[in-house]
C-alpha cells in the first residue's frame, strides 16, 4: 500500500525526525511504501508532491502542533495520532488503516 505521512513537533528539533524514522522503518517491515514529510526547525523537508498524495491511499499525521498545507489531503483517509504514539505504538497506527 502507498502511504504518505507528515510529522511535526513543538521545537522541530527531535521528535519530528524520530517519528519519521519510526514510520519509515515500520512501513518497510510491514511491506508498505511510505513517504514522510517532516515539518521541523529545518522547514519542510522531503515535501509531498501532488502526485505523491494522489497515489497514496492514506495519510498519517503524527503531529503535536498544527501543520502547514493540511488542505492538500482533503478527501483522503486520515489517521491522526499524537506524536508519542508514533514512537511507541507504530504498528498500532498501521493497524488502523482501513483497507
Amino acid at each position, binding site marked *: 500500500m502507498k502511504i504518505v505521512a507528515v510529522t511535526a513537533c513543538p521545537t522541530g528539533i527531535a521528535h519530528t525526525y524520530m517519528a519519521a524514522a519510526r514510520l519509515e522503518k515500520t512501513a518497510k517491515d510491514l511491506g508498505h511504501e511510505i513517504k514522510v514529510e517532516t515539518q521541523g526547525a*529545518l522547514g519542510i523537508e522531503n515535501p509531498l508532491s501532488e502526485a505523491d498524495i494522489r497515489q497514496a491511499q492514506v495519510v498519517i499525521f503524527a503531529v503535536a502542533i498544527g501543520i502547514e498545507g493540511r488542505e492538500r489531503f482533503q478527501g483522503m483517509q486520515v489517521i491522526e495520532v499524537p506524536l508519542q504514539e508514533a514512537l511507541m505504538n507504530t504498528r498500532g497506527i498501521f493497524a488502523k488503516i482501513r483497507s
Partner: protein
Amino acid sequence: MTKNACMALEFTFICPLPNGFHARPASHLAELASDFVADCALTNLRNEATANMKSVLSIIAADIRLSDKCSIRIQGPDEQIAWTTLRHFVGKDLPAYDVPLVVLQDQKSRGLPRFLRSAGVTAYSGQPVSRGIGQGKTVIIGTVEPPSREVPAKGLDRAWEEEQVKQSISAARARIENKMLEHLSATEAGILHAHLAILGDVSLLDKILEGVAQGYSAAQAVMDASRFFAGLLRQSDNPYTRERALDIQDICFQLLEDVSGPKLKSVVELKGPSVVIAENLTPQQLLALDRRWLAALVLESAGATSHSIILARSFGIPTLVGAKEVRDLSPGQEVLVDANRGFLIAECTAPVRKFYEIEARTMQKRRTSLERYALRPAVTRDGRGFEVAANVSSSEELTSVFQNGADGIGLFRTEMLFFGRECVPSEEEQFEAYAEAARAAKGKPVILRTIDVGGDKPLSYLKMPAEDNPFLGYRGARVYADHQELLCTQLRAILRASAFGRVQLMIPMVTAMEEVLWMKAQIKQIQHDLEAQRIAFDPSMPIGIMVEVPSVAFILDQLCAEVDFFSIGTNDLSQYFFAADRGNARVAGLSNVKHPGFLNFLQGIVAGVHKHKRWVGMCGDMAADLSHLPLLLGLGLDEISVPSSEIPTIKERIARLSLPDCQKLLMQAIACRQAADVASLLNRESNGASRSLLEPELVLLESEIDSKEEAIRELVDAFYVEGRTDDPDRLEEAIWTRELVYSTGLGHGFAIPHCKTDAVSTGSIGVLMFRTPIDWDAVDGNPVRVVILLAVRESDGNDAHLRVFSRLARNLMNEEFRQQLLEAEDRDAVLSRLTEELDRSG
C-alpha cells in the same frame, strides 16, 4: 549682562544636565563660587527656589532639573570677574559634569531557578546591586533617625551651644580626616571626601546656628537641620539627589553623638557570619560593621547610587535593595542571600543547600576551566601566540589584573592619579604608583601612558580653558608644552620606575612628528639629569604613541624611525575617523568600529607598522568585545589590552580560533557592504563554526543522580563550565518549557531533552548516563539510562547543527545504535560512537 537697580550682575541659563544638578556639578559650581567675595545666588525659576551658590547642599536643594530655566545673581566687590568665570563655567563646562559619580546597571531581580522552584522553595526578591552569595544569621538594624526624646530640646546658653556645634563639627572632621590617612580604596576615599564637603557646607552650619539662635539646644538644632535638608533632597525627582539625604543624616547623626554624648552610639557587633537587614544604612554605619562577618546586606529602601551601596560594591559584599517584606524575618534566623539572581531565601532547606553546593562546585569548575586558559599565554588552535594585556586605572587593580592572567599592562591610565584631588600629585607619589605597577608585573611589560586630560576629562587645577569643541581641542599631548613642569615631573617618575621592571612609555593623542620629537627631547634631558644625579633608570625604555588621530596613520614610515611601538585607541580613533562625537547620542551610532572602512583603515595601520618590524597593539572598547576577536587576530595585532575581568574568556576564545580562518574572515568583513553585514558575519562565526557540538567534557558517565531535575541541572552546569552558556538558569528554563509539553523520554531507556534558546552561545550536545536508571515519565513508562541534551541557538539557528540533531534523533530510533551507546565502556567509546554518527550527517 544685565545690570539691575542695586548694581548686581545677572545672567540666566537653561540647565543642560540630563540628570539635573546633582552632587558633582553642584560641588564644582560651589567650589568656583567660593573663590569670590561677592554673594552668588542661584534661582531656579521653575520652583522659585533660591540657593546660596557657595553651598553644595543649597544648590542641590534647589532641585534643578534638565531644561529648568535658572538665573544667577552676583553682587559684591569682585562681581565682574565672578560673573565672567561663572558664566563661562555654566555655558561651556557644565555639560561635561553630567555623568553621576557611579552608574550602576539597573539589574532586575530574577526569579528562582527551576530547580529550586520545583523543590517548593519560596524567596523574597530584591534588586541585586552588588553580586555574590552570602549565608548567615539575620541581624536587623533599626532606622537612622535618632530617638528624639533623648535629646534636650531647649538650649542652655546660646554661646555655649554654638561652641558645641563648632566643636562637634571639627571633631567629626578630624575623625574622617584620620580615617582618610588609612590605606583606603578610591571609592571609600571619594565618599569620605564628599562627607567632608558636607561638613564644611556653609548652609548646613547656618541652618544649625539659626536653630541655636532661636533657643534650641545644639542637638535639637542639628536634628532640625538634618530633617530640613534631608527633606529637601528627598523631594527631588532625581534619585541620585534623593539618596544624598542619607549622607546628610549620616553626618548629622555623627554631630549629634558629639553634642549629646556617646549614649546614642549604636554600633552593632557582628558575631559570626551575618546577613544585615535594615531599612537603610548610612555609609558610616556600614564602615562601622565588622566586614569579616558581613556575609550579605539587604536594604529595604536604598537606591542603587547611594554611597552605602557604592561602598558595599567596592568591598564585594553581596547586596540586595528594595526587598520589601524582609523585616518580617526574625533576628538570628539562618538565611541565604543570592545577589547574583536577586532574592533572599529564608529557609535553608536541604534542596537549597544542595543547589548552592552544586552551584559553588560548578563556579569553581568554571573558574578552573577558565584558569587553564587565563594563566597560560593565549595560543590559537593553530599555535599562534597572542598577548592579552590589561587596562589599569589604579594601583588597587594590580593584584586582580595578574590573577586574571594579564600578559602585561597594555594601558596604565596615569591621569587617574591626577583626578579627584586639589593639586598635582608629587613626583614621589607618582613614582611609588608606577614602580608598584612595574614590580607587580614581575617582568611583564607595563605601558604607562603619560597624562591624558582635556576633552571629556577636564582637570580642575589645570585651569584648562573652556572650548567649543573639546574633543577637537586642547587635550592629550597637545597640552604638554604649556604644562612642561607637570609633564617633566611625571616623566621623571616614570623613568625612575623603569628601573623596577619592563616599563614602556606611551604618548596620548599624537597628531604630528613634532610632538614626538619634543617629547623625546624632554625624556632625553631628564635621562641626562638622572644620570648626573646617579638615579637608576632603564636607558632603553621603549617609547610609543597612541594611534588616535588619523593623521599619524599616514606617516607611519617616518614615525617608525622614531618610536618603538604603537597602540590603537579605538574610542578616539573611530570618533575622529567617522567625524562623529561619541558623547552625542544622535550621532554616536555612526562611530561603528564594524564599518568595513574602519577595518580597512586598521589593516593599513597594522601593515604599515609591521613593515618596519615595530609592535602594534590595541586598547579601547573595540578590543574588549569578544565578538570582535576574530577580526583582531585577523588584523595581526601583536597585543590587545582590555579590562582585566575579560581576559580569561578572551583567552579561552582565542584557543578556539585559527589564524588563517580569522584572516579570511577579516578579508570578508572588509569586503562587506556595511557594518550590519559585518555584524552578521561575526554572529555566524561566533555561532559554532569554530566549535564542535560535542566535547569530552560534555559526556558525563556513571552518574549517581536520582532525579530528572538534578540531571538537567547537571548538564546545564556542564555547559556553563565549558563556556557554552553564560545564563544557566535561562537554559534550564528553556529545557523545562519544552519538557512540560510532553516528556522527551522516547522509550527504551533514552531521553532526549532539547531546546532552542540564545542562552547557549553555540549549538551543543550533552550526554549523561546514569548508574541506576531514573524515572523520566517516558512514553513507554520505563526508566531512563541515557540522557542526550540538544541545544541550538534560536536567533541565528545554524542549519548544520539542526541537521546533525535531526540525524541523531532518527538514529536513536535504531535499536542497534542505542545498544552501542548503552554498551559503550567509557567516555571515549560514547564520544567516538556519537562523533562517528555526527560526522556522517555533517
